[in-house]
């Protein structure tokens, strides 16, 4: 097995703050897992199971209370600037800047990375075209549909050509038909561009459609089940897999063969 590009080792995150409910509670506890280069790992779990905290730890937006997060051998929180251009994030909601046109939103990451204007706009236009948004380059976000805006945000992440793509339920606010199409495009782009990706979702169907591996989280963010989707080769097996995941998520089947309380 090749070296992991992402590794969590006994990672815990305990929030301290004025909010009595949040203070002293572990959002993530003793979490360990690895992701190898080129993998597309789906993380699924109910709301409040610590997925987003894990995500923020991975993105370097939070520091762990204990344990070790390593991405390409470095600490994403301490070596924050080193990851410039190496990690990109597609968030829940498009998070486009309303004062920037579509092309300038896509070029935003490249601008922060100091790329010359003509180069970054060329790259941004190219990504907008790849995502079927030709003709909308100069449109402002308010003039785009929800699906189009999310495409722009995907283009923004891909435009910086990162090694790792982190996605936090990016299609959850879209209708089923739009999100279905975008999921397909997203997987195609990840595979074609050989990216490593972690995709957070609360939808089992989405996890099954996207992930080559699925990590099922239960609070406080420990991996209750780990499955490889390649194991399910037909519809029956996929339905069975879905049932197993659902059972673990809802707590009806706390312990399985795959349980890994790290």
């Amino acid at each position, binding site marked *: 097995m090749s070296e992991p590009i992402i590794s969590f080792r006994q990672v815990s995150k305990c929030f301290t703050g004025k909010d009595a409910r949040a203070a002293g509670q572990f959002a993530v506890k003793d979490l360990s897992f690895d992701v190898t280069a080129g993998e597309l790992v789906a993380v699924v779990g109910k709301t409040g199971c610590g997925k987003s905290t894990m995500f923020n730890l991975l*993105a*370097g*937006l939070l520091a762990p209370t204990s344990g070790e997060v390593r991405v390409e051998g470095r600490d994403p929180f301490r070596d*924050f*600037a080193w*990851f*410039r*251009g190496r*990690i*990109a*994030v597609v*968030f829940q*909601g498009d*998070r486009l*800047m*309303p*004062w*920037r*046109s579509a092309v300038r939103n896509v070029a*935003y*990451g490249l*601008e*922060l*990375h100091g790329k010359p204007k003509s180069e970054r706009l060329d790259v941004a236009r190219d990504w907008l075209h790849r995502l079927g948004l030709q003709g909308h380059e100069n449109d*402002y976000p*308010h*003039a785009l549909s929800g699906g189009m805006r999310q495409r722009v945000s995907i283009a923004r992440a891909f435009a*910086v050509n990162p090694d790792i793509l982190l996605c936090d339920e990016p299609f959850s606010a879209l209708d089923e038909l739009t999100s279905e199409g975008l999921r397909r495009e997203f997987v195609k782009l990840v595979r074609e561009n050989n990216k490593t990706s972690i995709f957070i979702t609360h939808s089992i169907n989405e996890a099954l459609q996207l992930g080559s591996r699925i990590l099922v989280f239960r609070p406080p963010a420990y991996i209750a089940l780990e499955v490889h989707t390649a194991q399910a080769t037909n519809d029956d097996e996929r339905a069975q897999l879905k049932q197993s995941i659902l059972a673990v998520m809802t707590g009806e089947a706390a312990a399985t063969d795959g349980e890994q309380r790290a």
Partner: protein
Amino acid sequence: MLRHLSLNKETIIAMAALALAWQLASMLFPPFLFPPVPAIVEQFFNIFRSESLLLNAVATLARILGGLVGAFALGTMLALVMAKWEKAHRHLYPVLHFNQGIPALSWVVISIIWFRNTEFRIWFIMVATTLPAFTFQILDAYRSISKDLLEMSLSFRPSRYDLFRTLILPTVVPGILTAWKVNLGNASRVVVVAELVGATSGIGYQLLLMQQLFNMAGALAWTLMLVLFVLVVQRLITLIEDHVLTYRAAAERGI
């Protein structure tokens, strides 16, 4: 051209009606109460013909802008301190709030007692009266920075300068422009009071002279000068808004 000056048909009709009503009143009342419109217009243009009179207008305009720049700079600093440190906010907020309740005339009296230099007196009055509004408006603008957009920006690992340039500045600019528009109106009223009581030049001082001479046409001409200045600067700010906030204009037009 008319569009750029905000002179639509309704505005022109309303202003013409006002002038006509005044002219009619001038036929019914003595000229020291209601001077005819041509006399007011003549006095207004006389200001531009006389260098010494024009300097009075320039002095007032410079005082307004100087006071606003000072209040804006100080207000920005206070707003940033209040945004950064909650403790500072808890202490400064009541002081500024209290300050808002002090009438401009009280500041005029206080500054005359405190300071000898006329220009500094007026500057102090301008800053003291417009500082709270600037501070609160800039603080509001700063706090309106979207947490979601901040997280998104941080995910690209920007430098502090880039974060300020690409996220913070575009977010706070609309609030700052609104603050300038609002405070410009306040400042133009306050500066006249300050000059009326404590200066020997400026529009306020000229208004005092006109009152002593019972020259209503002159008083109105100087008032018109001040109104014209406020309208022109407000229009300039709107033009800047239209340029900087193109996306808003497009959104309002549904493009």
